[in-house]
C-alpha cells in the first residue's frame, strides 16, 4: 500500500485545517445571508478541529487530551448551531410578519 509518511501527512492536514479556517473566515466577513454566515462559522470550527486532530496524531499513540477537547468542542458547536438556527428562523418569520423586506 502506498501511503504518505506520517510526518508529511500531518503537515498536510495541519495546512488544510488552517486553510479551511481562513477560507471560512473570509466567507464570514463577506457573506450577508445569516444561514450562510452560520455555515461559515461551522466550517471555521471544522478547520480548528482538523488542526487539533492532526496535532494529536504526532505521537505513535494519539494524544487523548486533544481528542477529548475536540469532542467537547463538537458538543458546544452543535448546541450553538441549533440555537443560532432557531434564532435566525424566528428573526426571519418576525421580519415577514412585520412586512419588512428580507435582507
Amino acid at each position, binding site marked *: 500500500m502506498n501511503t504518505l509518511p506520517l510526518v508529511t501527512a500531518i503537515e498536510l492536514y495541519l495546512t488544510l485545517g488552517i486553510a479551511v*479556517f481562513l477560507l471560512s*473566515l473570509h466567507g*464570514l466577513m463577506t457573506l450577508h445571508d*445569516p444561514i450562510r*454566515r*452560520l455555515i461559515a*462559522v461551522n466550517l*471555521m*470550527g471544522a*478547520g*480548528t478541529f482538523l*488542526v*487539533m486532530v492532526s*496535532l494529536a496524531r*504526532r505521537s505513535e499513540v494519539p494524544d487523548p*487530551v*486533544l481528542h477529548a*477537547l475536540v469532542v*467537547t*468542542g463538537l458538543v*458546544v*458547536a452543535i*448546541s*450553538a448551531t441549533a*440555537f*443560532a438556527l432557531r*434564532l*435566525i428562523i*424566528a*428573526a426571519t418569520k*418576525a*421580519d415577514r*410578519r*412585520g412586512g419588512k423586506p428580507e435582507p
Partner: protein
Amino acid sequence: MNLALLSLAIPLFSGLLLLLGGRALRTRTTGFIAIASTLASLIAAWLALQEVAAAGTTLLLNLGGWETGLAIRLRLSSLSALLLLFTALMHLLIGLYAGLSRAGINRDFWALSCFLHGSLAALWLSADLFNLYITLELLGLTAVAMVALSGSKAYRPAANYLILSLAASLFYLLGVALLYGRYGELDVLLLAPRTEADVITRLALLLMTTGLMLKAALWPLHLWLPPAHASAPTAVSALLSGLVVKGPLFILWVLWSEVAPPTLAQQIGPVLAIAGMIALTAGGLSAMRSPHIKTLVAYSTVAQLGYALMALGLLLTWQLPQMHIALWLFVIAHGLAKASLFLAAGEMQASLGTRRVDGLRGATQTVPVAMFAFAVAGGSLIGLPPSGGFLAKWVLLEPLLSQPQNWPWAIGVLLGTLVSAAYIFRVVALSFDRARINPPDINPDRVGHWLALLPALMVWGMALSGEWLIQLLAGGGV
C-alpha cells in the same frame, strides 16, 4: 476554596431548578428563588474573600482529585474572590430592580441570569485555558439568549451577536490548540514558566487576542456591541455592559500577564494601550452623536473599556503593579456605574415614552430620581471625585504624570475624560431645559427609579473603601 465553589454552585443549581421547575413555579416565586440564591452566593463570596485574605496566598484546587497536570485546576486569588463578590453584587442589584420595578421582566430572565452568574463565577476561578474556553462559550450563549428575551425585534441582533461570538470563540480555541500542540500543557500555572517567544506562540497569542478583543468589544472590534446591548431588555443591558464584557477582558489579562513570555508582553503592551486611547475618543464621539438614549449608553461602554484596555497595555509595557490596581478598579467602578446608567435610561424611556435623547427635555422635573441616577453614574464615568471612577483614574494617572516622558499617555486619558464629560453633560443639559418639557406618558415608577439610583450610590461609596480595595488588589498580585 469550598466557599468560592459554593458561590459558583448556588446560582448554577438554582438556575437548573428554575429551568426544571419552569411553568410550575409562579413568576413571583421564581424571582424570589433567584434573588435569594444571589444573596447566598454574595455571602459565600464575601467569606471566600476573607478566607483568601487570611491565607495570604492563592488557593488551588485540582478538580476530581486528579494529580497536577492531568486535573482541571481552579484557582482562588484575592482578585478572583473580589470579582466573585462584584458579580454577585451586580446580580443582586439588577435582580432587585427586575423583580420590584413596575417594568417587570420576562420570567425566563431569572433562570438565565442564574446561569450567567454561574458561568462568570466559573470564569473567574478557572486556571486552565480550555476550561476558560468553555466558560467563554457558556457566557456567550447565555448572553445571546438574554438579548432575545426582549422579543421579535431583538432576534436579528441576537443572531448576529451569536454568530460573531462563536467565531471569536473559535479564534480563541485555535490559539489554545496551537499552544497545546507546542507545549503540551493547558494549565495556566504550568504553562507560564515554559512559554518562549517563538513563531507558534506568537501566532497562538495573536489568534487568542483577536478572539478575546472581539468578545470584549475592544476597539476596533466593537461594532457589534451597541445594537446587541441597546436592543436587550433594560435589566439585561445592564448585566451585559456591566459584567459580561469583563469576562473576556479577564482572560486577556491572564493570557498576557501570566502565560505570554514577558518580552512578547512588552511588545504588545503599547499596541493595546494605543487601541485603548483610540477607543476612549472614538467611542465617546459616537456616544455624543447618538440620537437614542440606550445607544448612547452602549457606546459609552465602548469608550470606558478603553480605560481598562489602556491600563492593561501600560501594565504589560512597564510591568507596574499600580496599573494592575487601576485596571480592576476601572472594571468594578464601570460595572456599577453602567448598571445605574442603563437602568435609569430604561426607566426614563418607559416614563417619557421616547427612545430619543431629545425626549429628555425637562427630565430633571418630570423624572427627577432617574435623571439624578443618570447624572451621578455619569459623574463616575467622567471621573469626578470622590467616585469610584475618580479613584481608578487617579491610580492610572499618578505614574503617568510623575514622569514627563509619559505625558502623551496622560493627554490621552484627559482627552477621554473630556469626551466622556461631553456626552454626559449633553444629556444633563437637555434635562434642565424646563422651557420645552417633554411630559411623561405615565406616572413615574418610584421604586424602579430609586433602584436605578442604588448602584450609582455604591460607586460613589467605593471611594470610602478605596484604601481597602487598593490594598487588596496590591497584595493579591496575580
